[in-house]
């Protein structure tokens, strides 16, 4: 009972088709100037242990106090994910010993998370939307960092990151292909950036994912969906801390293959935690379930249950920006853009804003093309994004206006854009300065046409038999006018003169 849509999710093994099932835990660092419980500063690039308070270092008698801003950010994110906000949540301690964890426990929210269930709509690579269920979002502390490569005999501990607020966003096992997983992480990242609750910087580790991967025989996922019975699914392995879209995709592909091979050889999958090694392109076992620690979770007695007032939640809700899905729908209805164009524009909030500024009173489709093609390409080449775009949106608007009013042709517009990008001034100034104005003076065009026909009588005769040969004449006229002739006028005059 597999339809075509399901078929694309199948992978062939030696013994038959399999399917992958994934759930993701995304760890997003809360955009905040201070840590979750200590008031110490948060920032990238500080010297080792320069951003550590006595609370972070777990000194005797030190107590956590909750940073309200981080709570607000979590609520904001929950609202952005259209998830349930839990008016009462609670912090729990996850106990384990490690040198990057000074208190011997991480404060997290196991039993009562601040955000409950939600749904995220994700655009697949093929333009088809799919839903991913959000199980929960909870707040927790990050750990410090161990540095092993400074000395052959010593390990160093940097606690700058210890105590920094993280949001862990846990998805349902709704992801079925590496592409879907990547698209889902991209969507979450976009939403977080829109909301301003996480900067989404994966290189700095501010957004990373734990990927739970299992494989099962084709058809079993549907049975799981029907019954909710997890025994239809395979044993999962958790790939920890994957911090790029490419690695997420690679890690899943490797891991799924690895599991299928084991199963097809008659083996069984051991539930374990694995690490993806991008250099070797493989996942490696970190610890198995048997070695898994007993974290002895219990409610943190130093912190009271977190009670939120509805009015406060409502205030946050009222301050939410337009979210990507709403923006996409609005761009389509308001500007008549295609879904594809709208999706490309909303992928970056600043890009969509840029478009809207430039599109005021202009041909929106044309503006969208310029923004998503030329401007995007130049920015990418300079390793920039729309938030640090040097080109004013008014320039794009003016460029489009010049095209719309036939001052320049689309072709010349590219040349104009080059000059503008290189800082030679506004499109109008550039057109003026370089004399790029389109020739609409029919007298000039007629003269050029006459000259060319006169010089090529045989070709002119042949056009009567083969009308598409007019293209050659168009090219010649454009060449003679330096590309500035209005193509429509050229066509019209040629047709008349050639008797077509």
């Amino acid at each position, binding site marked *: 009972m597999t339809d075509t849509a399901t078929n694309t999710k199948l992978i062939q093994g030696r013994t038959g088709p399999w399917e992958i099932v994934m759930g993701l835990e995304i760890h997003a660092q809360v955009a905040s100037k201070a840590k979750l419980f200590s008031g110490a500063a948060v920032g990238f690039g500080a010297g080792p242990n320069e951003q550590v308070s006595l609370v972070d270092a777990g000194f005797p008698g030190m107590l956590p106090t909750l940073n309200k801003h981080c709570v607000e950010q979590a609520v904001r994110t929950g609202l952005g994910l259209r998830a349930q906000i839990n008016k009462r949540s609670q912090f729990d301690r996850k106990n384990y010993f490690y040198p990057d964890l000074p208190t011997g426990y991480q404060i997290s929210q196991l039993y009562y998370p601040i955000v409950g269930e939600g749904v995220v709509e994700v655009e697949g690579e093929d333009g088809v939307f799919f839903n991913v269920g959000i199980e929960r979002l909870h707040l927790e502390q990050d750990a410090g960092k161990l540095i092993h490569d400074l000395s052959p005999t010593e390990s160093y501990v940097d606690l700058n990151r210890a105590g920094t607020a993280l949001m862990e966003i846990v998805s349902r096992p709704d992801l079925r292909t590496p592409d879907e997983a990547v698209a889902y992480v991209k969507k979450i990242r976009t939403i977080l950036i829109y909301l301003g609750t996480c900067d989404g910087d994966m290189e700095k580790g501010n957004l990373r994912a734990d990927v739970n991967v299992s494989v099962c025989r084709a058809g079993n996922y549907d049975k799981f969906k029907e019954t909710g019975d997890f025994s239809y699914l395979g044993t999962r392995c958790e790939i920890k801390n994957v911090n790029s879209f490419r690695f997420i995709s690679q890690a899943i592909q490797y891991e799924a293959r690895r599991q299928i091979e084991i199963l097809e050889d008659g083996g069984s999958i051991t539930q374990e935690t694995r690490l993806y090694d991008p250099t070797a392109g493989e996942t490696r076992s970190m610890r198995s379930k048997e070695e898994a620690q007993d974290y002895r979770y219990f409610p943190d007695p*130093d912190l009271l249950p977190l009670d939120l007032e509805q009015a406060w939640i409502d205030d946050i809700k009222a301050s939410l920006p337009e979210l990507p899905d709403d923006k996409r729908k609005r761009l389509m209805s308001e500007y008549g853009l295609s879904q594809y164009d709208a999706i490309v524009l909303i992928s970056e909030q600043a890009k969509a804003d840029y478009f809207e500024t430039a599109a005021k009173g202009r041909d929106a489709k044309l503006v969208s093309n310029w923004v998503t093609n030329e401007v995007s390409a130049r920015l990418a080449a300079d390793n920039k994004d729309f938030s640090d775009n040097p080109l004013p949106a008014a320039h794009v608007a003016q460029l489009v206006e010049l095209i719309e009013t036939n001052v320049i042709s689309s072709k010349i517009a590219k040349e104009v854009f080059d000059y503008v990008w290189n800082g030679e001034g506004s499109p109008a100034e550039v057109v003026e300065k370089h004399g790029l104005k389109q020739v609409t003076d029919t007298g000039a065009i007629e003269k050029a046409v006459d000259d060319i026909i006169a010089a090529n009588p045989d070709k002119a005769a042949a056009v009567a038999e083969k009308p598409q040969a007019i293209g050659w004449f168009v090219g010649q006229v454009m060449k003679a006018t330096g590309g500035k002739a209005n193509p429509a006028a050229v066509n019209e005059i040629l047709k008349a003169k050639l008797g077509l």
Partner: protein
Amino acid sequence: MSDLTNLTLKAAVDGLKAKDFSSAEITQAFLTKIEAANPTLNAYVEVTADKALEMAKASDARLAAGEGGVLEGAPLGIKDLFCTEGVQTTAGSNMLRGFVPPYESTVTANLWRDGAVMLGKLNMDEFAMGSSNETSAFGPVKNPWKSNGSDAELTPGGSSGGSASAVAADLCLAATASDTGGSIRQPAAFTGTVGIKPTYGRASRFGMVAFASSLDQAGPITKTVEDAALLLQSMCSFDVKDSTSLDIPTPDWTQSVGKSVKGLRIGVPREYVVDGMPAEIQALWDQGVAWLKDAGCEIVEISLPHTKYALPTYYIVAPAEASSNLARYDGMRFGHRADEFKSLDDLYATSRAEGFGKEVQRRLTIGAYVLSAGFYDAYYVKALKVRRRIAEDFDNVWGQVDAILTPSTPSAAFALGDKQIDPLTMYLNDVFTVTTNLAGLPGISVPAGMDSGGLPLGLQVIGKALDEATVFQVGAALERAAGFTAKPGKWW
């Protein structure tokens, strides 16, 4: 001049204000006395003589200028559980031997704000885990009291044994202490002193080495009920650095001392009659009831049906929290670290095995066990439910009574070494006191009589949450009626 060390805190503060004597004089008097007594009693783990004299000098300057706080110039002892900036703070443990905090606890900061002088740090059971002060890494404190005709050295109780012994032996005007299951009230009862644990959240836990976060509260051990009121109101404050601190004003409790108790309804819980309780304890309790009746109180027999589950509940909740709170003592950043180890795990295990004493290890083991997968629901979750029931027991009687009267302890002070063999017998010391910790209520122990051997016995008054006023009022009435003025004979 008479012996200044005999004064109550109130009398000393008044004398200092009146310039009858200087802070330097009274401070020196205590330092001299401590020097002579401490080698025997072992109440102080560190005497901060220079700091004390320096603080006294500053107090004298303020007093001379007609300034100064409510405790100006008064020399106090500080339980070694409170972090004191620049002064070693060990919590009675080898794990923290040599640890000098770069910060001050809120409770002690409040005392210095009010002008108090620190004489030194007082001995205690390791991490406040114990009822006899025998678990201290610095050796047991001795009770200044001895039973008639016996030379046996007695425990001052625990965990605030150093505080109780120092106050009873006049080695400070008063002392700070802390109470997780009875650690203020039991030592107070064993030494003929007054001790109160306030409502949970009254005193900040910031800078207090944690034992069990949901139960720990700071409080004073003093010579009189009035002194207890005076010192407690200085110790308490709302503190943004402690999330469980209560944002409410601290009343002037000294106003409650001496107020008539006429018309107050006093509950006597029938479940506090425990198996094997000595007749002397029952007699003392009956006496307390009679005194309050004479003073015009209405006596109401009440039932607190879940009392019998209090001790087992406490010995699940407290170790569970402790097992997590004490995880930070891992040999990494401060405190004891093993010299030799084979691996990271071995470094943890060896450092902690060497640094922690037996009783602490026992409780950490119990705590880890009750929180572990498969046992969490059966022990910890269940204990939290019972804890709720115990609190509800109290909620249910507050309509009928204004305060509750019970004995403080099931016996008088016992000999050092007596109960070390069986931890369970030791745990029974807390039977009358743990309920208030579990319910977060205030409780005071007031010396009310003696056993046949001439050892002090205490009565406990339990009040409603935030109603320390009534607790002080009734405690002071008992104090007046009992007229307990006995002092231990000096043998040290």
